[in-house]
């Protein structure tokens, strides 16, 4: 078995230049003026090359280059776009989905991509360490290959947002042969424009262009992602010419980039919503008036200035502004936004069970949240609420949120553009529901909206959710932090997305 695989690989490898030459006639002329290797400095560590095992943005960027899912998601147009599936259709009950696959795709190991690989991906996913992947594939009614280019998925319950879900990088299609041959390295093999060449955890990931890629070939032969955790050092590496792109430079150092004629700064507001979650199960904070008092006492602009160096946009509601069904016209429903108003705050507090004020403990898990909490602590003094700051590490925080042993925390969540994604923070049973919020009507509305195919009524349901939540104030929305990418003037072709999930496929750097 192994021998035949190797033999086939060898044959394919020897043949691949023949295939390749047909595709890229003008390639040599192009690469002459661009660097062969592009280096990208990243802020987060990558811990693996298996797309089903990791979910963070740092990994998604890589898997986007090495693997393909059935469909993709274009952040700019907010649309699902074809990837390995050319087209798809669903039954009227939204339970049965049929995908038509490309027939011109090969994996990095030379294997041809067929419907069988999708079946194998499902099989593999049922044992994946990633719980989302695992629960999706195990929760499927059935999956079958109609022929080599057609796959049919049958869901147990209707899901409008199925395509959004499977466009995620961790639903990347794996190759049966590869994984069977080598369980640890096999999942590295994908169909993307780049192949995993070297992975040195904590140092770099080196990708090499896959010359038999089904789409347009990238310009750079190698992409190297260097892990440079310290923002100041990362920027220095960019100035020094060691890297061509510096992801997420420190907010404090943006002026240095602006002053440097060789560098280009690309900033954008992220879609990560930072909020203060108030534990509604806490004796004090279960009082809605206390929560509202806090919301009105906070001056968000000060928080932004102190905790995000002023680089953020104020959030006006607990629903992503880019998200399906977003609503923030509070006046039209007889509410007001939580603008700073100490008088209003005092009135709410007076109405509460704690008119004299209270002492609360807020929990933080990282240094920037500590800054934000210090500002909030200072602001809440005005309405006689004393805040103690408790700092724990990420795991400690997670344990606290699991057990409910906290009063308030600052957190940030990046929602997908699907409206249903907000259910994570508003419905019980979800780990990110840090307010431990449970409102029967809200739960019901999320259920109804999930299977509502009518755009207008669906949006109305989401609007109602947002109005209820705004009135009851389990969360105080704070801001959408800005982030950015700095790169050398010579770098072009990359697509920088507000989710941080940048697409480096076609990046090229002039020599």
């Amino acid at each position: 078995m192994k021998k035949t695989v190797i033999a086939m690989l060898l044959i394919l490898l020897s043949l691949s230049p023949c295939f390749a030459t047909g595709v890229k006639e003008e390639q040599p002329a192009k690469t002459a003026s661009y660097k062969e290797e592009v280096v990208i400095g990243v802020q987060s560590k990558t811990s693996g090359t298996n797309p089903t095992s990791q979910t963070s943005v740092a990994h998604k960027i890589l898997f986007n280059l090495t693997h393909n899912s059935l469909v993709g998601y274009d952040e700019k147009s907010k649309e699902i776009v074809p990837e390995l599936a050319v087209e798809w259709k669903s039954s009227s009950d939204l339970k049965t989905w049929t995908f038509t696959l490309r027939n011109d795709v090969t994996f990095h190991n030379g294997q041809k991509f067929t419907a069988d690989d999708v079946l194998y991906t499902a099989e593999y996913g049922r044992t994946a360490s990633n719980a989302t992947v695992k629960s999706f594939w195990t929760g499927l009614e059935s999956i079958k290959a109609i022929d080599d280019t057609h796959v049919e998925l049958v869901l147990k319950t209707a899901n409008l947002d199925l395509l959004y879900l499977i466009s995620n990088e961790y639903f990347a299609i794996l190759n049966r042969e590869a994984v069977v041959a080598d369980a640890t390295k096999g999942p590295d093999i994908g169909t993307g424009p780049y192949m995993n060449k070297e992975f040195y955890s904590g140092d770099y990931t080196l990708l090499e262009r896959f010359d038999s890629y089904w789409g347009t070939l990238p310009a750079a032969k190698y992409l190297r992602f260097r892990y440079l955790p310290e923002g100041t050092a990362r920027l220095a590496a960019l100035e020094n010419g060691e890297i061509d792109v510096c992801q997420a430079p420190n907010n404090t150092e943006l002026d240095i980039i602006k002053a440097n004629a060789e560098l280009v700064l690309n900033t954008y507001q992220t879609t990560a919503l930072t909020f203060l979650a108030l534990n509604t199960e806490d004796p004090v904070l279960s009082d809605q008036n206390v929560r509202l008092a806090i919301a009105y006492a906070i001056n968000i602009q000060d928080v932004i200035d102190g905790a995000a160096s002023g680089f953020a946009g104020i959030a006006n509601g607990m629903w992503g502004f880019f998200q399906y069904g977003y609503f923030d016209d509070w006046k039209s429903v007889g509410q007001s936004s939580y603008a700073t108003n100490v008088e209003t705050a005092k009135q709410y507090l007076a109405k509460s069970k704690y008119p004299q004020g209270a002492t609360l403990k807020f929990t933080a898990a990282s240094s920037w949240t500590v800054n934000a909490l210090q500002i909030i602590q200072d602001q809440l003094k005005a309405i006689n609420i004393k805040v103690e700051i408790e700092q724990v590490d990420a795991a400690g925080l997670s344990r606290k949120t699991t057990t409910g042993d906290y009063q308030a925390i600052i957190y940030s969540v990046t929602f997908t553009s699907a409206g249903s994604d907000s259910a994570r923070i508003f419905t019980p049973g979800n780990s990110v529901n840090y307010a431990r919020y449970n409102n029967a009507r809200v739960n019901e509305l999320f259920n109804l909206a999930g299977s509502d195919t009518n755009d207008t009524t669906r949006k109305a349901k989401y609007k109602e959710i947002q109005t209820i939540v705004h009135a009851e104030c389990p969360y105080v929305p704070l801001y959408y932090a800005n982030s950015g990418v700095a790169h050398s003037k010579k770098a072009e072709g990359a697509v920088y997305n507000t989710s941080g999930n940048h697409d480096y496929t076609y990046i090229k750097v002039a020599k």
Partner: protein
Amino acid sequence: MSINNVTINAPATESAHGPAPRRYVRKTQMRIVLHQLSKNKGAMVGLFIILAIVLVAIFADVLFDYDRDVVGIHISQKLLRPSWAHPFGTDDLGRDIFIRVLYGSRYSVSVGVVATIIGLGIGVVLGAIAGYYCGLAEDIIMRFNDILSAVPSILMGIVIVSAMGATTFNLMLAIGITSVPQFVRITRASVLTVRNQEYIEALHAAGISEARIIAFHVLPNCLSPIIVQATLRIASAIIAASSLSFLGLGVPAPAPEWGSMLSLGRQYVRTASYLTIFPGLAILVTVLAFNLLGDGLRDAIDPKLKK
């Protein structure tokens, strides 16, 4: 000439005074040490600085309004360069760094000193036992020591702080415990050399109890490396507090502990370096002061070094 090999009956220059009242002897020893110390310029400078820091720490509340000057946030005044109004500048929340550094002596000096005392106390006792008794006791203590030194300080910090709460004392405890192995090793090494000296055997012969021998005769002769280690350790303890506070295991915010000021200023190293330079200088000055005093103390205690 048959007086070969008979020595002159040397006058009693160094005769043992016999069992003089001990209280008297120790008092004079103390006085000698203090006298020696007072002549050591370096030690006096160190002592002066330490006294100044302690005074500032004690009267910090009188000098400054904690809520307004130390933790009060003035976003509009953030990141001001050092000036007459703010000699050390202001931090990213608009707080005066000069005041915070002064006030922070309360936390940092006590973290450094108490953590060191904890490590010193446990380490010296264990090290002395290991060095003095050898055999099984030594094996057990030294193996335990090896085990303890394998635990990273961050892990120790996480566990102690989370199991017992994020208080300043627990931070001291965490840092103190991680420094135990060093003290054990140093104490054991010097006890080993002293233990076999003849005067210790003489004390045995005189029927003095072992605990007394260790406490009054062995340890005082091992002080020099221990004092050096302890004074150096104060600095490392403050620095260790800074790395722990970076992980959220330090003195809870917004208290102006130097270590946490350092770690919070990390982002500003390039654009507003005064956020880190001044707390760093404060640590340097404190460390220097303790070391100068420690050196003087060692020289005063250790008669071998006088010449």
